[in-house]
């Protein structure tokens, strides 16, 4: 589903964010990316949905080499990839329903699809009763659920999560992880960058550890360190 071949990404200030990384993630896998800040976890995720391009190496997503993907095709790549962030990136002037519907509307989905898909996904993430609320009326955990609903409403093949529990307390984080696990069980590949030791140690999934841009550990059913 995701394959990196000798990928090197350096930023202008000579920081090497990723150094000859080679790794493959199969369809339906759940992968934790761990490592210190600046080890290259976010760069890994940004390369996969082509917010960045590598200097050297090739990246395959769903069998396609995305290094040679022309810029006008990038939106179509991203329709197959859901993204979740630490800071949720919700639109404060839109309700829960509108935030999720927005993701379908702007890729031109017909109205009847929006009308059936959005309530279904909000039911799935447990926010059926909050459809009319605005993000600032919700708790952090609820906001992250909205953001996951938005990322998953289009049923993408891949879900990328960049420290989704970074702003949440441990109990709330468990709820979010249950939700991501549930999404993973539908066959969606999940790649999650995290600093949360207890989550990684509890879930016992594949762990890829990065250190200053290099992959130093790749362990199935791994622990944080």
């Amino acid at each position, binding site marked *: 589903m995701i394959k990196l071949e000798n990928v090197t990404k350096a930023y202008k200030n000579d920081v090497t964010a990723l150094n000859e990384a080679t790794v493959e993630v199969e369809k339906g896998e759940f992968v934790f990316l761990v490592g210190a800040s600046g080890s290259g976890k976010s760069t890994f995720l940004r390369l996969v949905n082509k917010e960045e391009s590598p200097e050297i190496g090739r990246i395959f997503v769903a069998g396609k080499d995305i290094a040679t993907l022309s810029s006008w095709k990038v939106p179509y790549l991203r329709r197959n990839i859901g993204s979740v962030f630490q800071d949720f*990136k919700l*639109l404060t002037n839109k309700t829960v329903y509108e935030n999720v519907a927005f993701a379908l509307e702007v*890729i*031109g989905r017909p109205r009847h699809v929006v009308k059936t898909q959005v309530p279904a996904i909000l039911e799935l993430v447990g926010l059926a009763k909050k459809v009319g609320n605005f993000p600032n009326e919700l708790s952090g955990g609820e906001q992250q659920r909205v953001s996951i609903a*938005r990322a998953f409403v289009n049923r993408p093949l891949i879900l990328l999560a960049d420290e989704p529990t970074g702003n949440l307390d441990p109990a709330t984080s468990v709820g979010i992880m249950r939700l991501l696990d549930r999404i993973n069980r539908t066959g969606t590949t999940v790649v999650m960058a995290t600093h949360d030791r207890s989550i990684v140690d509890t879930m016992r999934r594949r762990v890829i550890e990065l250190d200053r841009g290099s992959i130093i550990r790749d362990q199935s059913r791994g622990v944080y360190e």
Partner: protein
Amino acid sequence: MAIKLDYVARETATNLTRNVTLTLASILTVVVSLTLFGSAVMLNQGVNNANDRFKGGIEFIVYLQPTSSQDQKDSIQRDLEANPDVREDGITYVDQDETYEEFKRLFGESPQLVETVTPEILPPSFRIAPTVQDPDIVQALGQQFEDKAGVYDVVFAFEVVKRIQETFNKIGVRFLLAAVLLLVAALMLILNTIRVAMFARRREIEVMKLVGATNWFIRVPFIVEGIIQTLLGAAVAVASMTFVIRPFIDELSQDKVLPIFQGFEVTDGNLVFTNLLVVAVATVIGAIGSAVAVSRFLDV
């Protein structure tokens, strides 16, 4: 990928009302610059129409010495009639008495001047209409008669026309220059309005890019916004040209104190042409301004 019309309309309306002051500033600049531009174009058309009128008539006048003999006059008349560049019906002889009548008519308001003049001291003249209107050919033709016996002077109508034309071209060029400067200002204002609109919506744009909205889907509402701003400006400019500038030029052409404007005319066709030109320029300015803004500040 279908870009929905109602989506574009909704987004554009929101954007236009979000920055009312900035939007108004750019629209007003567009109005002033396009009105200036259109006025320059119409003035130019008015001058050309005035010249066309001149061209239909007398192109040059051969003045004879008041003391010239009948033989000299006949000789010049024969030469004129034999010349293929002179229209057959284009030779009018004005004798001294007629010249005196004309003089009295022209200077009727200065009786003292008229009193000092008698028909004998005024030059009789041939008023000539050539077959061609090319100023160079007309000049060469007229100059053939300058040195003939009995000729006092040859005066060309196009010299007057040229003077008028040069004067108005100078005015027109300055108008156009000011208009171009203002259009550049309008362009930059549009660019900034769109930039502010995009900044106000940067979170939405970020999300749109994230979930896979196409670049054009994101861009189109902003470009439409830019074009609508300039078109609103163009509408006001067209109205002011139709209901203010053109009647003003018409009024000038009737003005007896400023005879230089006589013959000025802006036809309905000229007006329509100018207005269409203004709308076209507005569209181009709006499209360029917003397209530049979108390509420079919307990193998609």
